[in-house]
């Protein structure tokens, strides 16, 4: 009994210490930033030395080889980044560390300094991000189309519509289930824009299911409920939901989905890998990467999953 009391006391102390540390870490965001900048300047000095050394020996070993890419699930889970990664790493010498989340969280990682470059798809949030000084520049470079998927028999008759807004109206009129991401992701933002264009406020209505989940889980839920949802094509084609749902509307003009890259501004976070970010952006817009991206998915799905923007070529 006595022994267990001592152990508990010890445990309590450890927890209290951890909690205190945590609170300190939270409250001193600005403090850690300034200390980070101090360490960064010394790092920069050493990295300058290292890079001059590297330049003489091998072209493909950058001073800071780790590149943290924060991207959305649609780019990572569709397999595009894992497909490009080995070639990028062989060409530039950088090592990619990819984290994927909804666009909201992906951008947040840029704000907290936990990424070097973003690859996301939500124009308004991206512009806000750049305008508040976190990003250097928004570089749109590829696109694909959102698609509306629904039950095989398409009870709302979406297939007869020509635009996404019309399709959403048809779904609302028929009262068929619509499953929304509801997670502030790029897809979710696009969906809300389409509802607005359709002049409908679906929030809280009976047939409108706010799933608060990633694309995969939302597709599963739409399949289980035999409802409609808005998705990017790549995730849908790589999800089992395609066995019980089908694309009822794709490639409408108002369903274009543009992906951009943003390097994190070294002025906000001096210790981010800006050289790596620039190398990434340069490589992604190169002739070689464009060809790889245009080929991706053709073998497996019979069509590319992403298209290069003309301006980026």
């Amino acid at each position, binding site marked *: 009994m006595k022994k267990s009391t001592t152990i508990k006391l010890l445990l309590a102390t450890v927890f209290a210490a951890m909690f205190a540390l945590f609170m300190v870490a*939270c409250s001193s965001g600005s403090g850690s930033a300034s200390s980070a900048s101090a360490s960064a300047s010394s790092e920069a000095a050493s990295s300058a030395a290292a890079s001059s050394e590297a330049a003489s020996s091998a072209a493909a070993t950058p001073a800071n080889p780790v590149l943290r890419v924060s991207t959305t699930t649609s780019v990572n889970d569709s397999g595009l980044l894992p497909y490009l990664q080995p070639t990028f790493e062989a060409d530039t010498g950088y090592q990619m560390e990819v984290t994927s989340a909804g666009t909201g969280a992906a951008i947040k*990682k840029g704000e907290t300094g936990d990424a070097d470059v973003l690859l996301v798809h939500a124009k308004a949030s991206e512009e806000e991000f750049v305008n508040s000084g976190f990003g250097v520049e928004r570089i749109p470079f590829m696109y694909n189309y959102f698609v509306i998927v629904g039950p095989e028999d398409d009870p709302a008759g979406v297939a007869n519509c020509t635009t996404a807004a019309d399709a959403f109206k048809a779904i609302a009129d028929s009262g068929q289930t619509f499953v929304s991401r509801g997670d502030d992701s790029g897809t979710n933002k696009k969906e809300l824009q389409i509802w607005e264009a359709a002049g409908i406020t679906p929030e809280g209505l009976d047939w409108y299911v706010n799933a*608060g989940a990633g694309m995969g889980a939302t597709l599963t839920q739409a399949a289980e409920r035999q409802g409609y949802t808005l998705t990017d094509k790549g995730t849908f084609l790589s999800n089992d939901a395609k066995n019980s749902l089908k694309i009822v509307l794709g490639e409408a003009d108002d369903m274009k989905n543009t992906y951009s890259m943003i390097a994190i501004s070294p002025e906000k976070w001096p210790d981010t890998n800006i050289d790596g970010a620039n190398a990434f952006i340069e490589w992604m817009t190169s002739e070689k990467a464009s060809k790889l991206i245009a080929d991706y998915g053709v073998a497996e799905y019979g069509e590319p999953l992403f298209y290069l923007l003309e301006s980026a070529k």
Partner: protein
Amino acid sequence: MDELVQAFSLLFTPGSELSQIVLLTLQMSAFSTVISTVIGVPLGVCVGLYRFRGKRLIMRILNTLMGLPPVLAGLIVFFILSRSGPLGTLKLLYTLPAMVTAQVVLITPIVCGLSATAISGIAPLVHETAHGMGLTRKRELLCLLYECRSQLLSILFVAFGRSIGEVGAVMLVGGNVQYKTRVMTTAIMLETNMGHFEYAVALGIVLLVISFVINSIALTLQERTSGVETGVAWNASRGGKLGGDGR
């Protein structure tokens, strides 16, 4: 800090989404705890009390299931309740009953294993005393349960804690649907995925405070009714769990 103030003021705003989420969370945890206790404690008492062939094997299986990953429990229930599953016609997926079912699958082995351990640790002593006093089997059992009351109470807390803090299973079978199946943990997950890290932490603190209040109320009630000093009760139960291995 602003987020924490915001979260607590939302909590006490009737009709706010947060208060609805908290109510649903409590509802779910209460159901899960009660149902898994009702199933798990009698089973645990049987396993702990009686000697039979295969008891060691059952204890091993129970101990293994105590570490059942929540996602796995959720997946099993998901497959059963899915449209293409055996109970798909009930249309229970993405509802509160589905979440409670998954949690019962998850928590019952814990309740069962812990009560078996608690009972088997004390059973020989009680049996000896009861035998000496000439008590009937029924009285002996009641006596045994009474002697184990503090352990059983802490098992109840473990079950409740597991239920209220669990995210993997309820995310999967509940679907985190706004106003219907969104509970505290899945709301925290969602806020995290949306990049609202501070608000997510605030929600986590709200959840801990609620847990603390409920535990305190339950302990106070128990003190009042039985006069047991709770510190001792807790220690005894820890001792029972760690020391008496019942195998």
